[in-house]
């Protein structure tokens, strides 16, 4: 994968992709993941945050075959190949949904809402999906 025309060599910004929607039911999660993969071609400092219903995106055991959707959970495992390893899941979002703090498809850091706010404040570019 190569960066498109107009790439600015040398500039490295901190990008945070905030995922707030459930993986299925709307296309937001899938299309957000497509942006994340493209961003890897630009050699930026990329992090992902999962909060609200977005926490369901990285839960293990998703099986959308019954609704005729392709399971894109394996794509999260490919992020490591693109050196995207900073994945943050908000603890309060898990608790509010009665979900445990383990059993994810990829290694993630579970952080508090306050820690998530601090992570967001450290970014140059925050994209919310």
């Amino acid at each position, binding site marked *: 994968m190569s*960066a*498109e025309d*107009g*790439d*600015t060599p040398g*500039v490295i*910004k901190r*990008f945070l992709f905030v995922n707030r929607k459930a993986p299925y039911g709307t*296309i*937001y999660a899938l*299309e957000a993941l*497509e*942006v994340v993969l*493209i*961003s890897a*071609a*630009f050699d*930026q400092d990329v992090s992902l945050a999962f909060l609200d219903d977005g926490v369901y995106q990285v839960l293990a055991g998703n099986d959308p075959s019954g609704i005729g959707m392709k399971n894109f959970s394996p794509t999260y495992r490919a992020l490591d190949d693109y050196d995207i390893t900073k994945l943050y899941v908000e603890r309060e979002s898990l608790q509010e949904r009665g979900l445990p703090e383990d059993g994810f498809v990829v290694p993630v850091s579970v952080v508090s809402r306050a820690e998530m706010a601090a992570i967001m404040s450290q970014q*140059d*570019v*925050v*994209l*919310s*999906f």
Partner: protein
Amino acid sequence: MKIGILVNEGPYTHQASDSAYQFAVAALKAGHKVTRVFFYHDGVYNGSSLTEPPRDDRLIVERWGKLAAQYEVDLVVCVAAALRRGIREQNLAEGFRISGLGQLVEAGIQNDRLVVFGD
């Protein structure tokens, strides 16, 4: 200040497109530069030339084009999102162009701010 804008929702259904436009106008009038508006998800419908609202309604697609012409704003519709939704060169409104997601990442890199309008 150099500003990039991301629009994630379609026109008329959702306020995001109107808010993005109003923000762009306010920023430009305040002397800022809006370099690019990137349309993603259902936001790609903002670039459909087939749009025909009732006569007493605002012309969302047309006013984007006029804004782009007046202030040299780059209006980019995501190719992958557009093809999924039936937007292509043949029905792309004036002032818009179709390109890849790299243009969104680039807007994040090259601008002082990237402002997201979505659900």
